[in-house]
């Protein structure tokens, strides 16, 4: 029988939540790496028992943990992320040049077909790759070396590369996103990159055609349609039908189009999920109600999903990597909050239940569908 394994990264450790295909009764394992920040955990599509975890702390820096048994046991692997060559500078908050400095790994994206190959998105923004299961990491310097690099500026959370999407139809194509530089695409396996931000409008950027500088919060893609991208920008929910060459807004009737997460239904590539957040100065859900909004039309027309979610006195946030979907016949949707709840829906968002309610603040949620 199928089962699901939900990998949860929090401010104070990792938790692994497992259930059978009914997704009603859950086992909770953890905290793993208690007391450490777990920005992200993700399993290999090629070998689901292989999981990579980003473990970090303000005291002790960055560690990378690897499991070969589905998260039961872990071993620390390579944690040296040295920029290629002389790192140079990006812009600091005040506009002055600031040297590139490694701070942490925000996101791991394991290869679709090799459990030893993983991409890492880091702060200060760069993309690294391992081909030996995490022992050694090498930068793909063409991204940071893009001519716009010296103009990249950190968002409030840091200059973080938080999104990496691999194109299942084209192994040479990848998409990444950086706060607050924008989205980029490579068509040559990571050697060269180009900004894909045309159509994004950010009111704090004077130039309406700015190549970089957009605060992209997250990007999602359905694997069956790799040319179609969905983006939750700082403000605005956006869509591209040409692999990021052009974007158009699809915020439609959302009560607010600020937010962090965005994801796509496993079997319906035009069904999207977002969690609107009140504003960039009040980072909690709108009107004290935790509502997931679903569009079944690829954007613009959104419905609030509220059954099982708190509809009063709720002031949590849902961070950019804290939503995921499973691929069971009835698509499961999962998200975690800064209040420590992890909610699951086994019916594509129609109804929700809290798997756990009292974890540390949730930073990331990924789900593995296991046979």
């Amino acid at each position: 029988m199928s089962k699901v394994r939900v990998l949860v990264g929090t401010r104070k450790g990792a938790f692994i939540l497992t259930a059978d295909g009914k997704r009603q009764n859950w086992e909770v394992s953890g905290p793993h790496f208690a007391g450490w920040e777990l920005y992200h955990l993700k399993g290999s599509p090629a070998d689901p028992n292989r999981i990579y975890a980003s473990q970090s702390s303000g005291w002790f820096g960055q560690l990378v943990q690897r499991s070969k048994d589905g998260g039961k046991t872990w071993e620390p692997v390579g944690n040296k992320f040295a920029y290629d060559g002389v790192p140079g500078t990006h812009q600091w908050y005040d506009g002055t040049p600031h040297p590139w400095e490694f701070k942490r790994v925000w996101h791991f994206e394991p290869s679709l077909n090799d459990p030893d190959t993983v991409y890492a998105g880091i702060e200060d923004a760069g993309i690294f790759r391992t081909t030996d299961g995490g022992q050694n990491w090498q930068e793909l310097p063409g991204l940071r070396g893009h001519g716009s690099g010296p103009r990249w500026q950190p968002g409030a959370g840091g200059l973080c590369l938080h999104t990496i999407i691999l194109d299942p139809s084209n192994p040479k194509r990848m998409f990444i996103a950086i706060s607050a530089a924008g989205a980029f695409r490579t068509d040559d396996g990571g050697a060269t990159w180009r900004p894909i931000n045309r159509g994004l409008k950010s009111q704090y950027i004077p130039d309406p055609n700015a190549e970089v500088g957009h605060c992209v919060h997250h990007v999602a893609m359905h694997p069956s349609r790799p040319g179609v991208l969905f983006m939750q920008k700082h403000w605005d929910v956006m869509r591209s039908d040409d692999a990021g060459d052009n974007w158009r807004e699809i915020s439609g009737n959302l009560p607010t189009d600020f937010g962090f997460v965005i994801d796509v239904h496993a079997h319906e590539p035009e069904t999207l999920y977002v969690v609107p957040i009140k504003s960039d100065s009040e980072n909690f859900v709108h009107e004290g109600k935790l509502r997931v909004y679903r569009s079944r039309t690829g954007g613009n027309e959104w419905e609030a999903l509220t059954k099982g979610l708190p509809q009063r006195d709720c002031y949590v946030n849902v961070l950019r990597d804290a939503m995921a979907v499973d691929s069971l016949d009835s698509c499961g949707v999962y998200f975690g909050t800064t209040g420590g709840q992890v909610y699951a829906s086994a019916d594509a968002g129609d109804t929700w239940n809290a798997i756990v309610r009292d974890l540390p603040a949730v930073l990331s949620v990924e789900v593995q569908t296991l046979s």
Partner: protein
Amino acid sequence: MIRVELPQHLRNLAQVGVEVQIEVPGAVTQRSVLDALEARYPMLRGTIRDQVTLQRRPFLRFFACEEDLSHEPPDAPLPAAVASGKEPLIILGAIAGG
């Protein structure tokens, strides 16, 4: 043998007790002790000092013989009592954060 006391999270990471004892070839300095410590416990690489710059992590301090040695040069000799194994080099996490 040189004695080194580790903070709790690093003890857990290296799967050791409060104190470890390591052989340090040559002069006993911060650098040589950390080199030997990281060679014996590779999982500690990057946790006490940055792997690229070799700078001490800002929220960690080095103490020995009731002295704060955090700002001593990395190649300065550690106190004789540390070199003889009478006293440990204490690696301490700053009391900061939440």
